[in-house]
């Protein structure tokens, strides 16, 4: 099977590295107006610098997360390791807001971004990778940033719903960061799609093929 030619391969092969989910970013609508000055005085573990940023920054320890709370009642939660933890954290932040005297709801909780990391297991020749795939979303400018960014366009599902287009940040060491996925499925799929393309650019320092490249 020539996986490197078939760009529609989203299937995982056994033995491939598995991306670890590192961070979930989610939003929720508390659906109530919030007086940020009052909240920043009553709640614990908060920061509020209105001239710098118009939101209260609140942190909790379990799950270890940071919430941005806006006067409109919208809230962003970052730092959770799973979707369930993100939801739980959002509820805890909302409860803290409630204890300050407001009347929050919990509307439209949604994961906005999932970040994962994975190790290809071998060093990678980014220059070669960039040369072959720059027309399909690979960007590599070593003077600006040592990582190659490779956007994966996943298209749509069978029922027509669009999928997210996660970006892989690929480094010479073989370590990869995946960001921009709206679902765990999309995150894993973007890696499954890109990984086979990397194999052609494997860089083992003891191989003489390095000299041929």
């Amino acid at each position: 099977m020539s996986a490197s030619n078939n760009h529609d391969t989203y299937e995982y092969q056994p033995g491939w590295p598995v991306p670890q989910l590192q961070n979930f970013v989610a939003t929720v609508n508390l659906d109530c107006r919030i007086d940020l000055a009052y909240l920043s005085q009553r709640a614990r573990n908060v920061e509020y610098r209105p001239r710098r940023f118009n939101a209260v920054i609140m942190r909790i320890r379990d799950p270890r997360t940071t919430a941005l709370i806006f006067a409109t009642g919208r809230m962003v939660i970052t730092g959770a390791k799973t979707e369930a933890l993100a939801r739980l954290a959002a509820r805890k932040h909302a409860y803290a807001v409630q204890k300050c005297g407001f009347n929050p709801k919990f509307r439209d909780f949604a994961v906005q971004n999932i970040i994962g990391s994975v190790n290809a297991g071998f060093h990678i020749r980014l220059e070669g990778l960039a040369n072959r795939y720059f027309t399909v979303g690979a960007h590599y400018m070593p003077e600006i940033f040592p990582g190659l960014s490779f956007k994966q366009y996943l298209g749509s599902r069978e029922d027509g719903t669009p999928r997210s287009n996660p970006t892989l940040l690929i480094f010479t060491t073989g370590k990869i960061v995946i960001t921009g996925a709206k679902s765990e499925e999309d995150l894993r799929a973007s890696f499954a799609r890109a990984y086979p393309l990397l194999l052609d650019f494997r860089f083992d320092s003891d191989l003489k093929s390095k000299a041929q490249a």
Partner: protein
Amino acid sequence: MAASNSFYDLYRHGSLGMTLTDALDELIENNSIAPQLAMKVLTQFDRVVAETLQERVKSRLTFKGSLDTYRFCDEVWTFLIRNVTFKMDGTQGTVVADKVKIVSCSAKRNDDK
């Protein structure tokens, strides 16, 4: 913080400031001095303490503990720290405390930020 003054008046709540305030209050009660003079003295105190701490005090106090809560609003930091040990530059011993509350204002006032 201080309304008509360009220095923080928070040092009035320390031991030195409280003693000064007590002494001035006594003098006012005896009619020895006018209340406006007392106010001028306290304002002078605010300035002198701020300047002296900034220019002439070099020793450091360090402390370690667990942060229980923090807050930053209106440019004021409030920390609640548990199980704290304090160490001072010159002295050998340490001071311990179960709970410490620290209220801290910016060293630079809003005019000369």
